[in-house]
């Protein structure tokens, strides 16, 4: 194996080198990522855009350590993680990453507090500290009075706030948001986006997948994808 090229300066948080992800669809090979080279700097707010089938979801899964590259290299904070096993990737997700989904993905049988505490549970925090942290985070997203409610008793916007609180509970390096406003009305969507922008302003790196241009406007960089390749990159002023 050839020594990987320079992983780049330390302000880079993720870097893909010749990233290829291939799926077998019947007899056909589909290149969801067809040799992508890109680096995101720390503290950035990226929107990955593109039509369906452009590979933006695959991009997100690979960056979020949920999926592995077929070939190429992935550096997370300067470390090559493309050959790590499932347990090690789980560990990375647990310690460095946070996730927000279109359909919120809260566990319905757990209370708001328990949902927020979930990453802390796997991090091995004790019950008292976890409860305290969950309370603080719930208050930060404006749901301090809903700690003991079930997700089903909340509105969509409230559920997404809980999901954001959960994504923040392990104090992640990067937050991944997959169509975070897709299931929300535009008014609530704006509120959620403002919350994310606020988090970014506070220093969190955010990588978001969306196909709505007005939502993408909240990001500072927009990465347009087509057929598993980067089409163009727009930077906001």
């Amino acid at each position, binding site marked *: 194996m050839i020594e990987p090229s320079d992983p780049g300066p330390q302000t880079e948080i993720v870097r893909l080198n010749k990233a290829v992800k291939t799926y077998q669809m019947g007899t056909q090979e589909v290149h969801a990522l067809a040799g992508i080279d890109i680096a995101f700097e720390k503290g950035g707010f990226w929107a990955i855009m593109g039509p369906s089938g452009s590979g933006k979801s695959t991009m997100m899964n690979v960056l979020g350590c*949920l999926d592995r590259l077929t070939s190429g290299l992935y550096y997370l904070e300067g470390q090559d993680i493309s050959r790590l096993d499932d347990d090690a990737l*789980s560990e*990375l997700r647990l310690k460095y990453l946070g996730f927000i989904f279109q359909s919120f993905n809260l566990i319905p*049988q757990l209370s708001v507090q328990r949902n927020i505490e979930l990453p802390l549970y*796997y991090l091995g925090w004790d019950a008292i500290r976890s409860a305290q942290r969950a309370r603080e985070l719930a208050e930060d997203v404006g749901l301090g009075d809903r700690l003991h409610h079930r997700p089903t008793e909340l509105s969509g916007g409230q559920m997404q706030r809980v999901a954001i609180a*959960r994504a923040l509970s392990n104090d992640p390096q990067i937050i991944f948001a997959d169509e975070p406003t897709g299931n929300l009305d535009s008014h609530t969507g704006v509120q959620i986006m403002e919350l994310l922008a606020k988090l970014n302003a506070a220093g969190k790196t955010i990588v978001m997948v969306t196909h709505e241009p007005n939502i993408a406007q909240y990001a500072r960089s927009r990465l347009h994808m087509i057929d598993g390749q980067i089409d163009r990159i727009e930077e906001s002023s």
Partner: protein
Amino acid sequence: MRQTRVIRNVRLGIENLLLHKLRSFLTMLGVVFGVGSVVAMLSVGEGASKEALEQIRKLGSNNIIISSVKSAEEEQRSTTRTMMSIYGLTYDDHARIAQSFGSIKRTAPVKLMRKESRLRERTMELRVVGTTPEWFDLVPRDVLAGRVLLTSDEKKQAPIVVLTEFGARKLLATEHSIGQTIRIGGDQFEVIGIVKSESGQAGNIQIPDQEVDAYISLEVAKKYFGDIFTRVTSGSFERERVELHQVIVQVDEPEHVEATATGIEEVLKRFHKKNDYAVSVPLALLKQAEATKRRFNIVLGSIAGISLLVGGIGIMNIMLASVTERTREIGIRRAIGAKRRQIIFQFLIETVVLSTTGGLIGLGLGVLIPFLITYFSGMATVLTLNGILLPLIISMAIGILFGLYPAMHAAKVDPIIALRHE
């Protein structure tokens, strides 16, 4: 830390199971009935065999019982011809047996008679045993009043009688009857004591004092009543001459019982042309009973095993369904950073909680059933610690065994697909 983790996992598992109370309960039922039946069967089985062993012990595990038997051809002859049949153990046999082996500790001859007896106005037929004072060492029973026969009585050939509780009840004798005279057959006997009665049966041997009403000295029985017995049965009239009906032999050590019994049989064979005696060994019965108990336990164990297996499969089935239903939850947990083995652990704990709870409820049921059986039928049941712990451990093991597959199944869930799962 690790411990609190387990406790938290168990608590979460319980909370999860409580979300579907009816389903969890129905899932457990297999294990509930499995464990319940195991505990109940074991305790009933244990009770029955304990009762049997108890009765065999009453016979005396160091004893050998030699009985007179009227052989089949003798039986035939006595019915066809009116002639006296002579069979059984003799006084000489008793003496020979008593001297034959060093391992024999003591012997008691038994001569059985049925005699019309009378205490004041009450007349009853009593079963009277003519024996020696050794009897009371061989068949130790509490003395309720007065005293038992002594060697000195033997020499005096005194007409005295010891009643059993049975016989005393028949004649309405009490402790005040000591010193009073009862009439046995045509003769007067002085009541000198009353002893406790025991009853019981094991295999085909009765305990020595089963249905015995009174004891008199063998010498007295010989002198007063002779050896010839007349029986009137439905018009025909039988006469037989039997010297002794039984000889009870006590051996010093249990290990010597079988060898001594064989030896005695050899000795008797030499002096008896006919096969008119039978040697029975309670110890052999005891061993047989224990073997039966073991076999019984194996059968019960297999039945229990099958019912627990069915219970386990039921749990596995529901857990697999639950894994499918909770695919999304598993995906969320995995995305957040749960490792595969943590997912396995979560589902395994749920299954073990389910099966152990089932085991505990089953245990309650299994304790209640023998209690009710004893209460309503009087059958003895015994709960042993093993009978309680074993099913509990097994139910826990079932949780692990049948929970492992669904849990592994859960761990294989791909978070990317699971999160898209609607």
